[in-house]
């Protein structure tokens, strides 16, 4: 890591002009993306952006505070159902409904954080996992939430602006994503963020230094759940239809995988990990149409496996990625990047 010489150097958003340049370039690219690419890629970008939001929130909890959550699909579901129900029943405007649903998710996060105060390791894993499953069950079984039939999302109006296509939605989604990213980045540079990191490194030591564990651990859960709630509320409008079967344990695992693959405890890592895995997820859903590889897999499936189960290859791929990352580069893509950077900085030594 680069050395920081003063407090202001540590908290500033852009460390140099180069960073400002690339940031502006990225914003420009994001703004022009719908004009440069086909409609399908706009959909892909929406999907990625939502995963980025959730991965950021999860990373605040897992990477920065050092807790474990296998239940983020639960918060995601609360966000999605909350937004849709607030809009249909109470006629809330979209942004207000989204915010309210995310706050409800945050409240659930706070409540989940309470038992988490005394739990760690596998105990925390099973508690959060149980939470996620419970949410899905409750939603799937009660008529109020549409039961197994699911819910259709209402027409999307933001003020006078009627959003109908993926492209319209993209221009709503990207500013929210950028805002939440900057917010996450700023949060960890404040007192709160430093408290999170202190808890991750050694919670007893942090408590001795005056970090209020009850407050900050529950806050970490609440903030993380808020991000997942926002992601869920937006996701409902990408799919235009939600049902309980979407929010499975596998989804929680995918969120965790995004954080781990991107790099634990890094904003940039979450973004890269979320983009990479969601892109792969979409690609691998119709694996047989991938050029060259698809034909080969088809013959392989026909002779040794079954052609009906071919889409399950994506599990194998994600499992392999998780294992390889953990075995060879526990810091994920961020670790690879840091190593490459260090290598070229000191080259030829």
């Amino acid at each position, binding site marked *: 890591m680069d050395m920081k010489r003063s407090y202001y150097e540590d908290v500033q958003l852009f460390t140099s002009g180069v960073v400002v340049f690339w940031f502006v370039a990225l914003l420009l690219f994001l703004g022009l993306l719908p004009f440069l690419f086909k409609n399908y890629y706009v959909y892909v970008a929406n999907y990625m952006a939502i995963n980025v939001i959730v991965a950021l929130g999860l990373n605040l909890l897992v990477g920065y505070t050092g807790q474990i959550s296998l239940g983020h699909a639960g918060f995601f579901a609360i966000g999605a159902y909350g937004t849709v129900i607030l809009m249909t029943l109470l006629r809330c405007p979209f942004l207000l409904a989204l915010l309210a649903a995310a706050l409800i998710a945050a409240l659930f996060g706070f409540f989940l954080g309470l038992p988490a105060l005394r739990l760690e390791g*596998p105990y925390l894993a099973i508690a959060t996992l149980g939470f996620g499953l419970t949410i899905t069950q409750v939603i799937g079984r009660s008529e109020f939430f549409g039961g197994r039939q699911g819910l259709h999302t209402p027409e999307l109006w933001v003020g006078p602006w009627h959003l109908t296509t993926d492209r319209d939605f993209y221009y709503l989604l990207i500013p929210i994503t950028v805002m939440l990213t900057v917010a996450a980045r700023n949060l960890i540079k404040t007192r709160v963020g430093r408290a999170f990191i202190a808890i991750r490194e050694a919670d007893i030591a942090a408590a001795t230094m005056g970090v209020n564990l009850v407050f900050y651990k529950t806050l970490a859960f609440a903030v993380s759940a808020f991000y997942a709630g926002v992601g869920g509320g937006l996701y409902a409008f990408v799919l235009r239809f939600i049902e309980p079967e979407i929010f499975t344990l596998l989804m929680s695992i995918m969120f965790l995988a995004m954080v781990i693959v991107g790099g634990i405890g890094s904003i940039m890592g979450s973004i890269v990990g979320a983009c990479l895995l969601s892109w792969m997820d979409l690609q691998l859903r119709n694996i047989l149409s991938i050029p060259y590889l698809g034909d080969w897999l088809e013959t392989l499936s026909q002779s040794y496996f079954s052609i009906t189960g071919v889409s399950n290859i994506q599990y194998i791929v994600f499992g392999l990625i998780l294992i390889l990352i953990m075995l060879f580069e526990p810091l994920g893509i961020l670790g690879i990047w840091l190593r490459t950077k260090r290598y070229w900085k000191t080259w030829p030594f």
Partner: protein
Amino acid sequence: MLDFLQMLVSGVAVGSSYALVGLAMVIIYKTSEVPNFAQGEMALISSFFTFMLLEQCGFPYYAAFPLALLFAVLLGFFLEFTVLRRAKDPNILGMIAITIGIEMILLGLVSWKFGADPKTLPFPISPYDSIALGEVFISALEALTVGVALVIMLILFIFFRFSKLGVAMKATQQNDTAARLMGIRTNRILMFTWGVSSLVGCVAGLLISPITMQPYMMWDPLLKGFAAAVMGGMTSLPGAVLGAYLLGIIENLFGGYVSIEFKSVVAFAIIVLVLCIKPSGLFARHYVKKV
């Protein structure tokens, strides 16, 4: 009253399969502190291997079941040797990630090979025969599950108490360095641990698959078994068994008297409650971190 007894008996029967999975998880967690999320899929792939032997290769029962158990042990060895041993400086999150990775690979392999349509494993006794115990009925398969679970618990107890390998496993768990100084090859011990655990899990899988076989069949037993193990304290074998029976019974009573719809999630509510009161489970000494 009769209803109550019937629910109790079914609860014990369900609890037995949770107990087997819970035991398998505890065996691994005890020695290496890995919460093994792949346990269910390890049992799954062993069960489907048996299915393949019986259905597609035409093996008789007496050959297929021992082969399946052997396969399970070798699978455990293989996973420990190729994956777990290679992890450098793992923390708990890393371990969870690795075992989830294994789980996804095994799940993917099984569903790629066999597709998602449900099958049933041919089994010597029909799962729909039932035995009357007074006025309470229990299916033959459930009775077998209870019996097998009890036998396995007994064997495990004897194994950990009296066999050289079992004692070595306990030593490795208590103090890795001291065990190595006493001449125990702890690496090999860990490998055997995975083998034994995989074997116990495979038995659970084989007892579940005569009813229905599909790639997701082990998720519920795995999560409940895990929950039972956590409730029992994650390091205590009797704790896991008791936790499993408690969960099975409570689940059935809840399903009978309160609401059948939320039967499958009540286990997790209980877990969270238990953990709030006793953070290290019911039967483990509370572990206090030294600074």
